């Protein structure tokens, strides 16, 4: 299984914020989701992979060149006075594998008017024009920064479908950042979890969902030592809840409720837990 992307000990500092020692790989044929709060460092890492900015230390290895990467950022990198048709006209000379039939098909699917100017497009449409371009030049790797934020559930589902279709071809891969955990749960094969510039989990989504369980019980059910196993411990009037590693269940009382946990709750508990250690 060859990797299309490999990051080793990537670090970058800004005043007041730093990304430390981030390492992960993206094998060909898979979708990797980057989860993290706003400001956790997702966009910075994506920008470094794309070559917009350089790491302070560490390496980024890409098994494809710039023309094989399709990009969707939060704002399109097109002149806002251009029309949709002009975007194709001006960018296609740079892509040897430009497919105008495919582009026309996507314009139709996304209901994009060729004559409309970029600045007149809604946020969702701005993302869609970028996606149409990204899918029309024979890209092997799609990199998307929060592609579904601001979209309604139907549009989000459409994007997730397109991403899954994209990797039906095993030589292609997708890397996208999001904090909409339901999209990640639906689409991602691998998940990189970023909290405050550090990776707290990098592996398959299935393994992440199996690693943790949601636990809940009555007040005073746990000893101090047992409480330490609970991540994102939350106490309220009639009990407590939180998350712990499945492996730690044997230390905890059998009377507790332990059940499968959703990605959303893992996200919340991890971030809460991280805040406690600040």
């Amino acid at each position, binding site marked *: 299984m060859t990797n299309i992307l490999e990051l080793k000990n990537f670090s970058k500092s800004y005043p007041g914020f730093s990304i430390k020692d981030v390492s992960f790989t993206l094998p060909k*044929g*898979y*979708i990797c989701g980057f989860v993290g709060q706003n400001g956790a460092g997702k966009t910075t890492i994506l920008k470094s992979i794309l070559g917009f900015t350089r790491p302070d230390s560490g390496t980024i290895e890409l098994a494809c060149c710039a023309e094989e990467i399709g990009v969707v950022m939060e704002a399109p990198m097109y002149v806002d006075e251009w029309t949709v048709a002009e975007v194709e006209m001006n960018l296609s000379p740079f892509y040897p594998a430009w497919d105008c039939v495919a582009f026309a098909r996507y314009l139709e699917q996304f209901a994009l008017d060729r004559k409309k100017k970029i600045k007149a497009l809604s946020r969702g449409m701005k993302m869609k024009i970028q996606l149409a371009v990204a899918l029309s030049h024979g890209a092997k790797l799609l990199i998307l920064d929060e592609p579904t934020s601001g979209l309604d559930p139907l549009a989000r589902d459409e994007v*997730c*479908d397109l991403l*899954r*279709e994209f*990797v*039906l071809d*095993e030589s292609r891969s997708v890397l996208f950042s999001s904090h909409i955990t339901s999209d990640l749960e*639906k*689409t*991602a*094969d*691998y998940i990189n979890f970023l909290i405050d510039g550090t990776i707290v989990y990098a592996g*398959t*989504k*299935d393994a992440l969902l*199996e690693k943790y369980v949601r636990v809940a019980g009555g007040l005073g059910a746990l000893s101090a030592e047992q409480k330490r196993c609970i991540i994102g411990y939350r106490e309220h009037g009639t009990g407590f809840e939180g998350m712990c590693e499945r492996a730690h269940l044997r230390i905890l009382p059998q009377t507790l409720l332990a*059940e*499968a946990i959703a990605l959303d709750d893992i996200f919340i508990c991890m971030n809460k837990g991280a805040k406690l250690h600040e």
Partner: protein
Amino acid sequence: MQIILSHRSGEPLYEQIKTQIRDAIFSGDLAEDELLPSVRGLARDLKISVITTTRAYSDLEAEGLVVSVQGKGCYVLPRNKELARENALSKVEAGLSAAIDAAKAGGITAAEILETLTLLLKEEVL
């Protein structure tokens, strides 16, 4: 072949896929030498990760129920009578364990369980 997943049952998705394919093989819904959907196609249809479908298929291959051919996909292997028996036995075991747990919770004795079992067996022709 149909695969219907529940996202709320708490049972891991790959287990559900395995169970349903296994049952389909043993019930004859899936014939010998039939080609299963590709791992990617199945993942796309069910809207789940391709890693999940791959895991289900490789587990089934380890159990000896299917075989994956490079470049072609996963084929159903001839129905192994022994495996079918084993599958049924494990289901019996699971049902009986559940009965014993219920008995413990309700204070039913072992003798009562055996009595109920004998009665039920008399009604069914095995």
